[in-house]
């Protein structure tokens, strides 16, 4: 039955090459921790992806309660943290996931760097990977404001001050982020929410797609 459905779809959409790229390929020995324990360093990229998936899922659940305006943002987070069933767990996973994803992406970057795996023909994939790292830092920065507690507000003020000291375009960057020349307030919160929930995740998904397509195209780098 399943085979028949598969054949029916495959006949029309030719999905076999797609399936082969995703799943039907061999894993070489040098990346397999079952053969060489030291190959666990190859797990960091996959774990980064794993935490990213958890971040997306927990974030989706958080937006069911979170209200991005300065009157209700803190109240909604407080309610989520203290009243909602498992709210503490979901918010906790999102909070700790933000740190774990940075740790994992950092270890993954070091693995690729010290193995020289970014060399020809994989230069572009390295560039995309570093861009993913930047997007992750951006997500961390914008997400810090959202609970609208003391450290969120004042850390963001400092961050915006630093952005405002950009040569030539500092003032414009500041207004783009804060929504107002002087006030870090209601406008800033909605902007950071939009950047955190729509702009950066969209960029992240696009970059991750490019990252994975390139891995499948080029295969994994050989043993040292």
């Amino acid at each position: 039955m399943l085979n028949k459905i598969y054949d029916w779809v495959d006949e029309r959409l030719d999905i076999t090459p797609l399936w082969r790229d995703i799943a039907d390929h061999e894993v070489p020995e040098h990346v397999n921790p079952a053969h060489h324990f030291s190959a666990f360093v190859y797990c960091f990229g996959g774990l980064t992806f794993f935490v990213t998936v958890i971040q997306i899922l927990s974030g989706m659940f958080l937006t069911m309660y979170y209200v991005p305006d300065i009157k209700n943002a803190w109240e909604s987070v407080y309610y989520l943290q203290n009243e909602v069933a498992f709210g503490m767990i979901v918010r906790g996973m999102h909070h700790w996931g933000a740190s774990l994803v940075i740790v994992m992406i950092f270890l993954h970057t070091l693995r690729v760097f010290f193995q020289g795996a970014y060399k020809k023909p994989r230069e572009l994939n390295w560039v995309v990977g570093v861009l993913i790292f930047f997007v992750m830092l951006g997500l961390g920065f914008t997400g810090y404001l959202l609970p609208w507690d003391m450290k969120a507000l004042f850390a963001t003020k400092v961050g915006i001050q630093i952005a405002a000291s950009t040569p030539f375009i500092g003032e414009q960057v500041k207004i783009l982020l804060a929504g107002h020349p002087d006030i870090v307030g209601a406008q800033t919160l909605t902007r950071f929410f939009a950047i955190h929930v729509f702009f950066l995740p969209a960029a992240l998904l696009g970059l991750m797609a490019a990252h994975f397509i390139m891995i499948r195209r080029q295969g994994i780098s050989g043993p040292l």
Partner: protein
Amino acid sequence: MHRGKGMKFVGDSRIPAVRKPNVPKDYSEYPGKTEAFWPNFLLKEWMVGAVFLVGYLCLTVAHPSPLERVADPTDTGYIPLPDWYFLFLYQLLKYTYASGPYNVIGAFVIPGLAFGGLLLAPFIDRGPERRPIKRPFATGFMLLALAATIFLTWESVIHHDWEAAEAQGKIVEEADFDKNDEGYKIFADQKNGCINCHGENLTGGAAAPSLVGTGLKPEEIKKIAHEGKGAMPPNMFKGTDEELDKMAEFISNLK
């Protein structure tokens, strides 16, 4: 496998005119035993993921995510700190030649060179060698950057007053009291100055602790008013003993 230009399709579709047989990719360039990704290797990856997830959940349960009191833009005494992975950038801005008039160096030039170098690493380190030992410059610069990042983060952590940071962000319970109470009026009297540090709701601030729910007896409060405590100097209270009795009674009863 035939790819790109010159491929023939059926009509205007993307279905190739010549159907390729499903031959797995040739991994003979790698020595040793290969393993099928699906499902054998994926199962092992899931086991690693499950172990990781258990650790992750233990962390989540053991350390609930922090939430400080609601943002109050008027509290200018608050000392902010970014999340730990920005601490090295934050610390850099505290050095003489990376702050003030040299702010551009600390905020843009140094991080720009570091992150720019990271982004363009494949175009800087172009030799064919892959082993770290045979790429002394690439390895050296990365180790240097790594050491600098760890050092700056460490410096930032040890120079931060974590206890004060915890106290300044604490969620304080609002007390329910009558602002027409005689004790409150004495507290709010500018002559005594209590209100300047302990706040109009007695919930404290950057300079002084909250007076709500202290659990102190009136005698103890009177003693503090006379002799001071911690950062509070002695003899702050300028009123009469009778007034002090009333105020101490009032503060002692706050819950």
